């Protein structure tokens, strides 16, 4: 018997075997332990940072007057933005019948969930007394208090919690047929019960499939507006305020494009090493990477337009504070962050015009990392350079993040990595049944073409 070629085009059986064996194997790859260990160490950095914060209060952060938002909001927006690619890939590309999405949607959705989990931590802690965070919800309380519905910060609460709920439902519903496959293939009694419980009695009857498809399409329909709405509302946190550098109508579309830009960059950052480590080349092909790179390039150009227009409208307004903001942003004490942002988000992504670059996973990986950094810098520029140089010169000041700011930020990456490694070990990271469907359809087409 010859050894199967990992690069051969997949068949229905090989799809089942290859994807489910990653989960059902008894030999966990050593690299997985290594990755989880790093994630777990960083996760503990996060727990330590949160613990110290709860004991001592937000004073351990670098936030001050005038820069009251600092890293907490920068990181919140960064993580929320990363999540957007998952929803875009799952919902919008599903509705547009872009079949290439099938091999990346599962882990892109998982990435969304984990990114939202990381994002949620920041505003929760930034309120100062997280144990009162439930005051943000309108419920009949003994204080007769009602949240301020005119504040975008409250809209955020609803936008993000809706987003998290719908993403979780969408992800879980999509998993059900695969959970049933795992239930039927596993030998372990414990795994049978666990997967069986989660599969909710899925037997794969025609009626099940019909209901499943209705539910999945419906959820895709619900999730689609969320791709646009969540980051629009996040942008309102800034745009509704009067601060120069925030108060601009370009913000909603510019934030949504930025979210898709960073989200696809993160999907590539994860997909390229995973594909290499688990030999997923038959599923995540160069075509997939190429498509994602193209989406990234398009989103990047919209973001670049956003930068240009932001500066143009400030200049065109001829308002002293706006002009001062632009000059300070370009040549002030935080000029390094602005020019690095231009390098990361505008210059480097132009390499994606070249087909050779888009076909080269190493280059794509490098560019995606650069874009992740660039998108973080973008939020840093928006939050810090706008706040530290507000209307009132007497309260101008500087912002310096402390070790606890960095600890929490890097720590949430640990949370993200830990969740991701656990996910790829216990759940199929590529949708088995959708891949089989795809292989089946392609197989039929080939047979009719070549008799």
């Amino acid at each position, binding site marked *: 018997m010859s050894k199967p070629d990992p690069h051969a085009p997949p068949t229905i059986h090989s799809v089942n075997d290859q994807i489910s064996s990653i989960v059902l194997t008894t030999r966990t790859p050593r690299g997985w332990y290594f990755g989880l260990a790093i994630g777990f160490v960083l996760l503990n950095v996060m727990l330590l940072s949160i613990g110290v914060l709860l004991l001592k209060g937000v004073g351990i952060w670098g936030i001050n007057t005038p820069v009251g938002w600092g890293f907490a909001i920068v990181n919140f927006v960064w993580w929320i933005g990363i999540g957007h690619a998952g929803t875009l890939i799952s919902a919008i590309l599903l509705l547009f019948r872009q079949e290439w999405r099938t091999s990346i949607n599962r882990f892109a959705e998982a990435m969304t969930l984990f990114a939202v989990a990381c994002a949620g931590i920041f505003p929760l802690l930034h309120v100062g007394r997280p144990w009162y965070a439930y005051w943000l919800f309108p419920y009949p309380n003994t204080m007769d208090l009602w949240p301020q519905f005119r504040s975008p910060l409250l809209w955020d609460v609803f936008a993000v919690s809706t987003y998290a709920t719908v993403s979780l439902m969408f992800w879980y519903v999509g998993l059900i047929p695969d959970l049933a496959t795992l239930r039927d293939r596993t030998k372990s009694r414990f795994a*049978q019960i666990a997967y069986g419980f989660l599969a*909710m009695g899925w037997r794969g009857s025609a009626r099940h499939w019909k209901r499943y498809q209705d539910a999945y399409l419906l959820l895709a329909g619900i999730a689609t507006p969320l791709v646009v709405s969540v980051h629009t509302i996040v942008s309102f946190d800034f745009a509704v305020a009067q601060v120069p550098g925030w108060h601009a109508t370009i913000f909603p579309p510019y934030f949504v494009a930025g979210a898709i830009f960073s989200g696809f960059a993160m999907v590539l950052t994860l997909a390229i090493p995973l594909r290499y480590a688990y030999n997923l080349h038959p599923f995540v092909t160069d075509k997939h990477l190429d498509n994602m790179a193209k989406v990234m390039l398009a989103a990047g150009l919209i973001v670049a337009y956003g930068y240009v227009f932001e500066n143009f409208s400030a200049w065109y307004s001829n308002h002293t504070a706006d002009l001062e903001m632009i000059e300070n942003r370009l040549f002030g004490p935080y000029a390094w962050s602005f020019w690095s942002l231009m390098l990361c988000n505008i210059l480097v992504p132009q390499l994606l015009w070249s087909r050779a670059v888009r076909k080269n996973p190493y280059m794509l990986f490098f560019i995606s990392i650069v874009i992740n950094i660039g998108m973080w810098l973008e939020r840093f520029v928006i939050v810090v350079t706008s706040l530290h140089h507000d209307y009132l010169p007497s309260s101008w000041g500087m912002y310096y993040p402390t070790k606890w700011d960095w600890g929490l930020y890097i720590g949430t990456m640990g949370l993200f990595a830990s969740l991701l490694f656990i996910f790829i070990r216990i759940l199929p990271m590529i949708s088995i049944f959708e891949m089989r469907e795809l292989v089946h359809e392609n197989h039929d087409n080939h047979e009719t073409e070549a008799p």
Partner: protein
Amino acid sequence: MPQIFHPSMNTLSRVSIFGFLFIVAGAVGLAASLSRSPYATEAGVIRSQPVPFSHRHHVGDVGIDCRYCHQSVESEAFAGIPATSVCMDCHSQLWTESEMLAPVRNSYRTGKPLEWVRVHDVPDFAYFHHAIHIKKGVACETCHGRVDDMPLTWRESTLHMEWCLDCHRNPEKYVRPRDQVFTMGFERKEGMPTGEELVKLHQIESRTDCSTCHR
């Protein structure tokens, strides 16, 4: 292959999925009713004191005015707790041998004040001033209840913010003519001004912004 789950799991899972809604609703309802119950608010719960002082006897039976003991209620934030000497005004003549009053005499002799347990303790983050409420026609009874009918003292109200705001939003429901502020068991009689008229007369401005109380 044998079945993984017993057939009863079908019923169990259906019941738990639909039951989940009721469990969540029940938990929310429980939290809401607990936070308003005497268990959390201590409203209606008798506090034990060093001396079992009866407002019913002193106010209801004897007819002493509130201000005889709570002297600063018309001028200061704190209504005032009487010094032992105020008790001894009468009790140097009455019930001088009573066992129950031994701590009072002892306090008078040694000069060490009685340690009364505070019944109404407004949190430190809320500013409260008795005098302004008295001046605007908010009666003792409105907040403290029928003190003349309390054998031992308890707190009548929850002191929840919703309770404060109820009056601050609709003062006309509660205010009285100034000469009725210290009356217990007040009933509006013919010819007395209505709540709306009193609000105008006492120039009551309904203050509900945060900094009115959280200064």
